């Protein structure tokens, strides 16, 4: 091989090199660090080199740690409930507003405002609204003549509901925006064809619109699910996991393990478990779309060959 040919062969890799370097340091290094830390019995007072290597013991401990398992269960419950509610409300709103209404763009801007507020602020805002005496909810309830307000943040059931409401308030707009965009890019003529074929509004939604939006909806769902599993700030500010462990989600558990219990290795192991779970979700999502695409491409090629 001549020198020129060899240089040409290497050119693409040279273009890739800077991005690769950044990727390695910005992404792989911290993750590698975390994976390594999860094998250590490591307290913040030690340098990482001084910590004892204990293999998989951190992971083994987690599987029998009732508090961690409880936080895992709370997280799953929380993610399932908020994502379900957000999907239903978000897609429902999009269906309602998918028409030429005057001022729709203004309405859209208003709808996405919650998404743009920092989660800490959202948490504080809701904490004031949930306040047992001066909060707007309980004041309204009392003004309506009821003796008792709702123990928003002091009852384990109500506090779960309270954090769910706050999350739904903040993140439904995300789904609304994506669903509306997907809806407005649906092939108009297919909907007209359905109208001619005799479909009523409801049938058009259920039989045409929703199935056609499915790819976008699935991706949206997964994105929200991934985010919901990592939720932290709003809950930290609202309930700090309480009362008891009723709203202690995994991210909060990780934070407290590292910060309060000074168990960096164990916290790293928890993070890794969460990461593996989320990665499985993401990989599943990519594989699903890849397989679909490949199948369609293959069939299309065959069909075009038949036309020749």
């Amino acid at each position, binding site marked *: 091989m001549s020198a020129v040919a060899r240089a040409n062969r290497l050119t693409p890799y040279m273009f890739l090199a800077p991005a690769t370097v950044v990727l390695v340091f910005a992404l792989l290094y911290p993750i590698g660090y975390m994976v390594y830390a999860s094998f250590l019995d490591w307290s913040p007072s030690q340098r990482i080199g001084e910590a004892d290597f204990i293999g998989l013991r951190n992971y083994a401990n987690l599987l029998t740690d009732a508090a961690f398992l409880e936080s895992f269960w709370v997280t799953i419950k929380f993610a399932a409930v908020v994502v379900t509610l957000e999907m239903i409300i978000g897609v429902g709103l999009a269906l309602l507003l998918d028409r030429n209404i005057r001022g729709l763009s203004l309405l859209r801007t208003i709808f996405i405002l919650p998404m743009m507020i920092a989660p800490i602020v959202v948490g504080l805002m809701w904490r004031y609204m949930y306040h047992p005496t001066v909060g707007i909810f309980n004041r309204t309830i009392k003004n309506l003549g009821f003796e008792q307000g709702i123990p928003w943040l002091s009852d384990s059931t109500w506090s779960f509901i309270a954090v769910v409401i706050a999350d739904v308030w903040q993140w439904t707009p995300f789904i609304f925006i994506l669903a509306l965009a997907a809806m407005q890019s649906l092939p108009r003529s297919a909907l007209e064809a359905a109208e001619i074929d*005799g479909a009523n509004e409801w049938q058009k939604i259920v*039989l045409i619109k929703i199935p056609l939006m499915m790819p976008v909806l699935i991706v949206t769902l997964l994105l929200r699910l991934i985010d919901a599993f990592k939720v932290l700030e709003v809950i930290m500010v609202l309930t700090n996991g309480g009362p008891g462990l009723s709203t202690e989600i995994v991210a909060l558990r990780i934070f407290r393990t590292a910060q309060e219990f000074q168990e960096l290795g164990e916290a790293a192991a928890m993070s890794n478990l969460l990461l593996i779970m989320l990665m499985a979700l993401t990989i599943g999502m990519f594989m699903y779309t890849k397989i679909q695409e490949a199948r369609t491409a293959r*069939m299309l090629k065959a069909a075009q060959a038949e036309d020749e």
Partner: protein
Amino acid sequence: MPKIQLDNLVKRYGDFEVLHGINLEMEENEFTVFVGPSGCGKSTTLRMIAGLETVSGGEIYIDGKPVSGLEPKARDLAMVFQDYALYPHMDVAQNMSFALRLQKAPKSEINAKVKDVAKMLGLTDFLHRKPGELSGGQRQRVAMGRALTRDSSTFLFDEPLSNLDAKLRGQMRAELALMRQQVQKNMIYVTHDQIEAMTLADRIVVMHGGYIQQQGTPAELYKRPVNKFVAGFLGSPPMNFLDAELADVDGKLVVKGSGFQIALPKECAHSLPAAAKGPVTMGIRPADLTYAPDASDDQSFHLQVVVSEYIGAQSVLICDCAGQKVEVELKSDTPIALGEQLRFEVNTDAIHLFDRETEAAL
């Protein structure tokens, strides 16, 4: 009673009127083709009949009943769309049976119907493919199939062949003509392609600028266009138009322009109004000009060949007649050279004369 009737149909978008009072009657089982250039209002008219566009004025009658207030599904129509409008998430069989399934027809009936239509359209092997897995021609057939599985009284076609390549379009046009023989229904077909219009239609409706220019059988429109627009729109290669003057020369009625003076037949002289004398536009189709080196001066054109377009057996010659362009057809094996002067005899019965101002036929 006409099957479908448009009574003074008007369409406005805001203040902008795009259809200016369309009046039309379509007989039972007629194949009607709306043809015209882009923006002439033909698709809008079709979509109003379908119920996909609201009616701004006038009324549409189907079977004598006004339908402009009815939903599309209440009008008993089937429609084939330009981009096929197949349901991407359903396979071919589900696409074709969608309407029947909505009507809750018995499963056995649906299956039988789908099988029949699939067989007729050559789709039997593709029933379980999704539209994304079909070629353009196959998708087109599925769109037809979806319309055919329904027992609608009326079929609407909105430029169904315009997304296909030339070869496939010709093939599908022939298949449509064949299907037409098997399926006796009201059909309304929109196209901008005059060849589709001529080959498929029982009745052609030529539209332009939101007005109907003329309607009639293909032969009527071809032979007796009412104005210059219709004359120029139908026929390929298109009719030649020449600035000319209608005058009496030696007691004979002639049409003369720079480089030609052609005597009109006697019958023609009787049928023309006296006021017609003066400047006119003369129309003559390439097919009515014959290469004839020995033709007399008052029956022929002297043309200089500028461009020769070889098509196959025939060539189209673009010629110059004292500054005006004239297209003629000629057998390709005729030995001619560019720049040569040739004489073409005019079929004087086929001369069309149009008012220079109004462009109406005289």
